[in-house]
């Protein structure tokens, strides 16, 4: 058994929240650079250049890349040989969010109830998913998930007969309906298989893979590349002003499913793709 005190969890989450909002990960910066060499649309190119500058301004001034500093979605991989001491794991994570958002001048965007819509004032609570894994480490992965793009996320339950062609059509349809609303260039996290909720959770998990890295399964990798190419032929472009860079990446996570089912969940992520992780 390895003891990990809640204070170190809170500190880690606080830092991740601030860093995620101020500093885009290198995979995103590389994506901007790549797109600047391929984008044909002058308006699209200009948007990409401004977004690159925006990342630089956010980093140097330590202000958020986007004013929507997101809903914190936190995936925890908890080693089964870890003993969390000094309090509750979920409370420690939420305390980290509270401190990170208030001390980091990040926006409070969460309301207490979907009905009364009163702001909680400190961006808590986070959406927390915990997986228990082998070992004695505690891995924390957070994404500051923007609301505008999240609103364009979609789910469908296809029939096995609709199969792979149905999956492809649905994913492309998601890119079209998201359009300029979701701040393209978009990243799509796709969960295919499992149950209703498993597909949805996997669509979020899919966003953590490094942009541009290949999928471990060559068949799925080919599917991702085919879909990305199709998405970028739609013409939507950066901010929807027309262009070739509609999506930076489509990441798929699959899971076994029931003989009756073919669930597909698509999380739409904007170019403010703020993800960070730490291992304690």
């Amino acid at each position, binding site marked *: 058994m390895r003891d990990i005190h809640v204070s170190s969890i809170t500190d880690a989450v606080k830092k991740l929240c601030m860093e995620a909002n101020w500093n885009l990960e290198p995979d995103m910066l590389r994506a901007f650079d790549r797109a600047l060499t391929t984008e*044909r*649309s002058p*308006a*699209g190119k200009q*948007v990409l250049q*401004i*977004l690159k*500058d*925006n*990342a630089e*301004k*956010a980093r140097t*001034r*330590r*202000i*958020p*890349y*986007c*004013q*929507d*500093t997101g809903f914190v979605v936190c995936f925890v991989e908890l080693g089964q040989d870890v003993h969390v001491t000094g309090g509750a794991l979920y409370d420690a994570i939420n305390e980290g969010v509270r401190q990170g958002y208030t001390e980091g*001048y*990040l*926006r*409070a*965007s969460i309301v207490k109830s979907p009905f009364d*819509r009163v*702001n909680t*004032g400190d961006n808590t609570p986070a959406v927390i998913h915990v997986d228990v894994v082998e070992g004695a480490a505690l891995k924390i992965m957070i994404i500051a998930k*923007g*609301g*505008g793009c999240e*609103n364009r996320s979609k789910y469908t339950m296809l029939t096995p007969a609709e199969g792979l062609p149905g999956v492809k059509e649905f994913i*492309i349809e998601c890119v079209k309906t998201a*359009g*300029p*609303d*979701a*701040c393209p260039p978009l990243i799509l996290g796709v969960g295919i298989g499992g149950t209703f909720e498993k597909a949805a959770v996997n669509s979020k998990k899919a966003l953590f893979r490094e942009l541009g890295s290949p999928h471990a399964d060559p068949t799925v990798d080919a599917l991702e590349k085919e879909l990305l190419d*199709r998405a970028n*032929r*739609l*013409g*939507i*472009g950066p*901010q*929807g*002003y*027309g*262009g*070739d860079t509609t999506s930076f990446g489509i990441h798929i996570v699959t899971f076994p499913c029931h003989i009756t089912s073919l669930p597909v969940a698509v999380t739409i992520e*904007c*170019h*403010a793709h703020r993800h960070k992780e730490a291992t304690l």
Partner: protein
Amino acid sequence: MSVTTGSDGIKDIRTPLTDTDVESLKSGDRVRITGVIYTARDAAHGRLMPLMEKGERLPIDITGSIIYYTGPSPARPGDVVGSIGPTTASRMDTFTPLLLKLGLKGTIGKGYRGQAVKDALKQYKGVYFGAIGGAGAVLSAFVKKLDVVAYEDLGTEAIRRLEVEGFPAIVVNDCHGGDLYQDGVKAYAREDA
């Protein structure tokens, strides 16, 4: 005349706007906005709506004005504002036609507008500008002064009066039926998509 074209081809707009100003703007035009604009998003619109329906006075003068759909992040000490980019405009579609009828001239946001808004832009001479979504850190530099003028309890969703200088935007929907999003996709879509 509050719209002039700069030597770089970008149109300089000074608020408030008249019908003639609005008519001179075409979808795809790049603009720089200078003057007073107001922020309002979901919750503030929710409070303005019953006032408009009852014909009561609004907390801001919308005649000739521009509303920017945004909820800024808090300012660091010494800064005017934190990050301040646009939010998705279509969530305000239910409120926009009535605001345009009452004299609002422009809105700034990102994303598609519904047909009712596009029709109202034609009928009442209004314009919808796109600002770059997610470029909130860059856009903050164009805000010179900020005051909360209504609904302070709404936090980031309160109505703020902004003084902006050269705020960059692009005309998405004009009052002649022009639509940048449709034109853009047409120009760059490849048929086998």
